[in-house]
């Protein structure tokens, strides 16, 4: 008996697969697709390449209208960092 049990099908991969299929549907139905989270991470990374901003100073809001949804992104940049970034840009253009 013990020997047979060694070869019985592992159930965890089945659980994983069922969950993946189920959650794909449920996330679509509740509108929680992880889209905002993914966008936030990627946009933050792009901004960080150019200016230093605190992640909590970047606000993301998805507003649902009748036909379209609007993604609103507010980025608060310290004046000094903004100035440094523009001056870098100017000197880059001059060179």
């Amino acid at each position, binding site marked *: 008996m*013990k020997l047979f049990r060694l070869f019985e099908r*592992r*159930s*965890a*991969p089945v*659980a*994983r697969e*069922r*969950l*993946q299929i*189920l*959650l794909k549907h*449920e*996330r679509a139905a*509740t*509108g*929680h697709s*992880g889209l*905002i*989270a993914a966008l*936030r991470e990627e946009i933050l990374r792009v901004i960080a390449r150019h200016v230093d901003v605190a*992640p*909590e100073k970047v*606000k*993301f*809001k998805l507003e649902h209208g009748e036909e379209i949804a609007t993604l*609103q992104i*507010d980025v608060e940049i310290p004046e000094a960092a903004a100035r440094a970034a523009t001056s870098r840009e100017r000197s880059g253009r001059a060179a």
Partner: protein
Amino acid sequence: MAEVLVITSGKGGVGKTTSTAALGAALAQTGQSVVVVDFDIGLRNLDLALGAECRVVYDLINVANGDVRLQQALIRDERLDTLYLLAASQSRDKDALSEGGVQRCIDELRDKFDWVICDSPAGIERGATLAMRFADRAVVVTNPEVSSVRDSDRIIGLLDSKTVKAEKGERMDKLLLLTRYDSAQAGRRHMLSIDDVLDILSLPLIGIIPESQEILRASNVGAPITIADAQSTPACAYRDAARRLRGETVPMIIPGGRKNLLNRLFGRRAA
């Protein structure tokens, strides 16, 4: 100024209350001032987890409704000077809790403590949404099991949409606490692996708590595991999780990791 933390899960019986008590005590043991707040109106249990069930006079609803002052309702732990409990009402209905009242109460607690830890009830109704409403960060307690993972996913959706932080367009920080982890089942691949759960929920991991007898014993005697059995594996795992909450980098120990693999090999050979 305190950090407000919600311990939530969607599903019942996964270990929210045990984790609230253990994390609260672990933080208090490092000298931080902590209040744990029970939001499970009508089915309170955090008082039992802390062994304070005979000392509850006033509760969250009394404070939220302005019937009593916060000081009258706070219960100080008998073992840890810096750990306090604000119990839930046992006789009232969850609808007795008003959002404004909860907000005033949380604001007042923020001024007094380093940590405000809200123990959410199961489900996604009023008690659960109010427990997470004013949180700065969330700990999502999940068992490596299909229904728990599904419910956690649903709760993550609510954390990202129904909290004050989310409504302001800010990011709600969420951490995953994997509880009731059974390394023997995981070894036989009959339990979702840590990676499976992390892949599906994509949250950073704050700790892995093994399924254990010690937790049951601690709950029987009414003491958080980090006090009842400070040297046990789950107590160490909760202490490490508390340190991670404070921003420390602590290597993650997988319960029954390598040692267990050897045990399994020899165990099987002997069988």
